[in-house]
């Protein structure tokens, strides 16, 4: 027993030696995350204050109908609150797009309006909304262009139908006048299309706001990936030393327990140094969470104990990864891919509601998902027994597996 206590104290000393450096790095992470949050908030506030997504329009913009269309979109359509269409030259647009000043570049081909007027629609407006491969934003943009296409092609069909009927009736001289009238009627209706739906907002919800969801997700992601930060704790780990300690009377389970408790203190030290600036930001209202508005840091302080089981679970998981992969280098890479992969599946990056059902179920079943459910339930003030069982079950599984690996290594 005395040997075990001595071993635990030795591990504790190792952890304590790493703590100052770790706190510094935590602060650096806080600064990074704070700067990012501030930029995202600035971007969101800008959008709310009327800063719109700028889309560069290049190519043949000489047709008067096109000019009228752009003016109508900018003056009358609902999209004017979100999108600003800026005519510019190809080179200007390219440069602005690369500088990140434009959300997308739209290229209008020569003869577009003639192609639309004659119903050929063989000249496509091409747009570039991302430098790299398409992501969620580009796919949403694709959805918006589909909507615009539907509005135009359905209006075209109605007008051509009317024109064909007039031509069949031998009333060709009326086509021009009637086309203008029907065209205007359709444009008016397309512009007021939002009136098709009567919106009823229930104004309540049992879920978290997006801000609180990501607030919890950010802290859990930090805990999930803190194994990278604490990798130095495992640098000196080797099999010969474990065998030596075993020979001195500290068996594999006790070794793991000693290392785990020391490592957990290191993880909690990291969590604490992350939470201090967060508390400060909440107290000074620099960081706003709708559910905690006007309450300062008090709800966050009350929420902190909820994070402890999640921290214990992630510490056990990280210990297992480092133990199982033999060597700190492989351990780091396994931690990284498992951390990001699990975080992604459990909704730390995109809300899990965005994912297919099976993926959501898998994400919830993973340790990261169990921790997320625990934290979310903790914020709401009631943690169901099943959520407790999931977290404690995973904790036991990881500790058991780590002990098993150490036992087989020191046999």
């Amino acid at each position: 027993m005395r040997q075990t206590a001595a071993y635990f104290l030795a591990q504790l000393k190792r952890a304590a030696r790493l703590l100052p450096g770790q706190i510094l790095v935590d602060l650096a992470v806080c600064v990074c995350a704070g700067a990012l949050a501030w930029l995202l908030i600035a971007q969101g506030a800008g959008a709310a204050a009327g800063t719109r997504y700028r889309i560069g329009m290049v190519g043949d913009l000489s047709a008067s109908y096109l000019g009228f269309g752009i003016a109508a979109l900018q003056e009358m359509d609902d999209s004017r609150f979100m999108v600003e269409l800026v005519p510019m030259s190809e080179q200007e647009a390219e440069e602005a797009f690369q500088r990140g000043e434009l959300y997308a570049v739209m290229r209008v081909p020569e003869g577009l309006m003639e192609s639309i007027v004659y119903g050929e629609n063989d000249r496509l407006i091409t747009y570039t909304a991302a430098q790299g491969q398409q992501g969620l934003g580009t796919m949403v943009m694709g959805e918006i262009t589909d909507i615009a296409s539907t509005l135009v092609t359905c209006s075209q069909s109605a007008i051509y139908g009317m024109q064909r009927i007039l031509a069949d009736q031998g009333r060709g001289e009326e086509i021009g006048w009637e086309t203008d009238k029907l065209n205007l009627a359709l444009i008016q209706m397309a512009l007021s299309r939002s009136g098709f739906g009567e919106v009823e907002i229930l104004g309540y919800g049992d879920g978290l706001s997006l801000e609180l969801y990501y607030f919890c997700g950010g802290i859990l992601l930090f805990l999930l990936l803190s194994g990278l930060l604490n990798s130095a704790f495992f640098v000196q780990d080797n099999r010969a030393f474990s065998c030596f300690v075993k020979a001195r009377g500290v068996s594999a389970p006790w070794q793991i327990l000693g290392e785990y408790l020391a490592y957990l203190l290191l993880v909690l030290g990291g969590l604490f140094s992350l939470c201090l600036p967060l508390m400060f930001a909440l107290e000074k209202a620099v960081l706003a969470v709708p559910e905690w508005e006007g309450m300062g840091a008090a709800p966050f302080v009350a929420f902190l104990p909820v994070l402890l089981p999640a921290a214990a679970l992630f510490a056990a998981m990280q210990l297992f990864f480092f133990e199982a992969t033999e060597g700190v280098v492989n351990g780091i890479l396994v931690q990284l891919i498992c951390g990001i992969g699990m975080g992604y599946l459990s909704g730390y990056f995109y809300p899990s509601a965005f994912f297919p059902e099976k993926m959501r179920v898998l994400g919830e079943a993973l340790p990261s998902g169990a921790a997320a459910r625990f934290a979310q339930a903790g914020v709401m003030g009631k943690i169901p027994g099943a959520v407790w069982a999931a977290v404690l079950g995973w904790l036991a599984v990881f500790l058991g597996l780590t002990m098993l690996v150490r036992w087989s290594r020191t046999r």
Partner: protein
Amino acid sequence: MPGQMFIRFALFQKRLLKGYGFFLMLCLAPLLAAGIRQLSGEAFGIATIALYLPQGDDAAAEISERLLDGGGVLHYLPCGDGETARRMVETGKADAAWIFSEDLSEQIEILARKRRVRPVVTVVERKDSVSLILGREILSSAIYPFFSYAVYAGYVRDELGLMEMTDGELRRVYDSVAVEGNLFQMVYPDGTPGETEDFTYVQAPLRGILAVWFTFAGLAAALCFMRDEEHGVYGRIPLTKRLSASYLSGAVFLLDAAAVLLLSCRLAGVFSDWKREVVSCVVFGACVLAFANLLRMLCRTPGRLGMVFLPLLAAMLALCPVFLNLQYLRAGKLLLPPWYYLQSIHNVHYLYGMAVYTVILVLASAALQWLQSRRS
């Protein structure tokens, strides 16, 4: 000389692949990629809509077909009645409910004749959000084809005075001139049409995740080299030549990781074409190698290098277009190899940028090596 290089290369490879930990690490990336691709085959969306459309109504059938068969970013749950749809929103099973009027066709015809837009759908939402605003636009565009047809039919009968035209005749003429297809086409900066790559937004971040993983493989190789240095593995190599030794050992590490990166991109469904992928991957590999070695020389000890990992990961996830594409901090982005790689797949400009950045990193490392060897 090439023979010696090959022997060293083979020895490094043997040493790496001997341990199951490295093999496990290599296997995890393709497993994650293939798993997420497999799971993304099901229906999903950025918002779930409980949909109630009356049975036996022409307009409802057309709108239902348009919404349910059209793919898109929303996920629809058809409901038997309006009350069920509303309850799904109340209980949080859906983000919104679209409850269409029982006499939808009739209402649309009346409104079209009057040429007025009035509500024909009740949209029930718990809370307004950006995805639901987009959803309402999708709803309007699903109703508009039926509405514009009704406007055309009403116009022909009322304004042109052709009351005798039957529904069948009107429909036949309309269908004979109907314009279909999309007016817009998404293209990448290199001119590749967007539809040539068919993957969902669930798969989209995988390339970014793999690029970050690859960068960390480079950093892990640097860490490995530092530990070997501490153990005296490179004791016989003079300090001035250590940089090339670290490049060689790192290249072996990254060669395996590059093969896994390409395989994982293929399994994830985000692969473009072989030539482009291989060229980008090779330049990316060189860039990561140079980046990791410069960091190794700046940090000097494995402990310090290890402490850089988390802030670096945070910076990569925030600044590289993995999950979000932030418009700010371009200077910060320019320092991160995955940023160039993710942009270079469809833009050769960034491939050249990455090559230039690699040269800068190598020159900086050589200068630092020279300084450090002079000091010691």
